[in-house]
């Protein structure tokens, strides 16, 4: 077990190094002189020279990269051009907001996805099954920003039940989390349905029925348990989609998270903020994937852990 964990962690390292290289190169790949970019549009020639010196932009690129990583590991991403505060100050609480939104969306997706998947399987090929299937197709095909705007029109403007934007109370969380989680709920429902139908067709389920167990008990005790494994994999894979999708949902609902910060910082050309936010999301994603892998190894005895 110990070796399995260590090996997985070592496998994650090349991806982390690659991510840091890409984020580092964002500065150099942006057209124009990086020192000019960092110094901002109103900088004088002397300012630009100072920036070049202080960032070490005059030194070899490998040295610059190692310097960048060294600072990143200690949480030093420099200062935001716009507010003058350190990047860490700017992104800390926004990171938590994004995690809160993504977590809530995942919870929504898992609950709605599993319940509708089970309903589909239980009422296979009947009206309810077809309705849920069509809805899930729409959920997969609809762009998140459109879903968000429609939800706002219906629930905030027409019905007046929920607040439009912001994040002052838990009520503010509902629409963004539904928007972000909808596609995932649809995917989970489809996987759940397919696996449960397959499981319910197997011999031991037939035995359970033959024993005289009720349909509800068969589904919950025998079917669900065995159909859940693939769902766990899907949930792990989809977590990354949620972190990426948060960029769009946060922009629609003015949710003060990392995603919205990235978009705002791109338009205000605040590169340190973009770099730090992108790096943080990518590292979180790699760690989540690692945890999913480990969890899967723990839960499923068939996975080779030696």
């Amino acid at each position, binding site marked *: 077990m110990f070796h399995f964990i260590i090996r997985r962690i070592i496998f994650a390292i*090349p*991806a*982390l190094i*690659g*991510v840091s*290289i*890409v*984020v580092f190169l*964002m500065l150099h*790949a*942006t*057209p124009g002189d990086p020192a000019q970019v960092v110094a901002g549009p109103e900088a004088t020639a002397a300012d630009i020279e100072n920036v070049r010196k202080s960032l070490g932009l005059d030194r070899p690129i490998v040295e610059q990269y190692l310097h960048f990583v060294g600072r990143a590991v200690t949480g030093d991403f420099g200062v935001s051009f716009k507010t003058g505060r350190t990047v860490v100050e700017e992104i800390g609480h926004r990171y938590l907001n994004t995690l809160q939104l993504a977590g809530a969306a995942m919870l929504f997706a898992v609950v709605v996805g599993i319940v509708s998947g089970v309903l589909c399987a239980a009422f296979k090929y009947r009206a309810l099954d077809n309705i849920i299937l069509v809805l899930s*197709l*729409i959920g*997969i*095909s*609809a*762009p*998140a*920003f*459109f879903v968000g*705007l*429609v939800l*706002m*029109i219906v629930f905030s*403007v027409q019905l007046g039940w929920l607040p439009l934007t912001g994040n002052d109370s838990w009520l503010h969380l509902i629409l963004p989390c539904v928007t972000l989680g909808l596609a995932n709920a649809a995917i989970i429902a489809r996987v759940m349905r397919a696996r449960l139908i397959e499981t319910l067709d197997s011999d031991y389920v037939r035995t359970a029925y033959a024993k005289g167990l009720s349909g509800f008990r068969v589904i919950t005790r025998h079917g669900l348990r065995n159909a859940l494994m693939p769902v766990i994999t899907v949930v792990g894979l989809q977590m*990354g*989609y*949620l*972190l*990426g*999708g948060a*960029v*769009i949902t946060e*922009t*629609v609902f003015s949710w003060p998270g990392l995603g919205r910060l*990235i*978009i705002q910082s*791109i*338009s205000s050309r605040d590169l340190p903020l*973009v770099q730090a936010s*992108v790096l943080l*999301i*990518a590292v979180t*994603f*790699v760690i989540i994937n690692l945890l999913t892998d480990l969890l899967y190894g723990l839960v499923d005895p068939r996975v080779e852990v030696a």
Partner: protein
Amino acid sequence: MSFTENVDTTVPSAAEPFKPQRSSEWARFWKKFRRSKPALPGGIIVAIIVFCGLFAPWIAPYDPFRPEFGAMLEGPSWAHLFGRDELGRDLLSRVIHGARISLLEGVLSVALAMSVGVPLGVVAAFFGGKLDIVLMRVIDVMLAFPGVLLAIVIVSILGPSLTNTMIAVAVYTIPIFTRIARSATLALMKEPYIEAARSMGMRNGRIMLRHILPNITGEITVMATLRIGIAVLTASSLSFLGLGAQAPTPEWGSMLASGRNYMLIAPHIVIFPGLAILFLVLGLNLLQDGLRIALDPKSVDP
């Protein structure tokens, strides 16, 4: 059911590699395609939107760029079926012209991603070893940026524009094609006819081009249909975020972005472009189901 009856035991000839050419093969394709219930409605939706995209200037009732400041945000009417937008432009005409842009975004970016991703995957699987390991590590790095984030990073480097959006979406799609091409090739490598071609002394490039590529086309096509839908979604999302097509361009995502400020008083200006994206992606998803069955070599003939 035995597998052998459907496995093509003859070495496929280079001239007509995968696509069914004779009419009877088209008939077989069509029969299999029709076994998927959603495929035909999906195909019809996609066909309508493609028609709109191809003939936009002729079927759009008005000029999509001409403002009419006296009638801003006017609701739908018989003269203007989808109403007018925030500058009084005819929304139906803009949505029809938008079909052209969205289809272009989807098809071009996927084509670009395929032309880079598929060869990489085939080569990685064919030669294996260090090359494979290095290529897969690079792909892992690309996949470490979740969802649209990689596309956003690329657009932020290249600068916002329609072309750069397509490049960004293409790069973001490359890993998908590399992976699927790699696993399909790995499965083929065990086939006797590859072994035979090798022992005949056929050059590696020729084996890949004539024996591997034609035999993975089916899987790639199915994936491409699916990815065009996702590429349309991603590209319109980037435009919605202000990183893609810019202001007067009638791109569906950017129409939603500029319309959202007015949606409280005139919801139609976000509803119609949004529905357009939804229908295009839905159509492609449905169509993909039929192609998957029809192009799967293992699916039994009806």
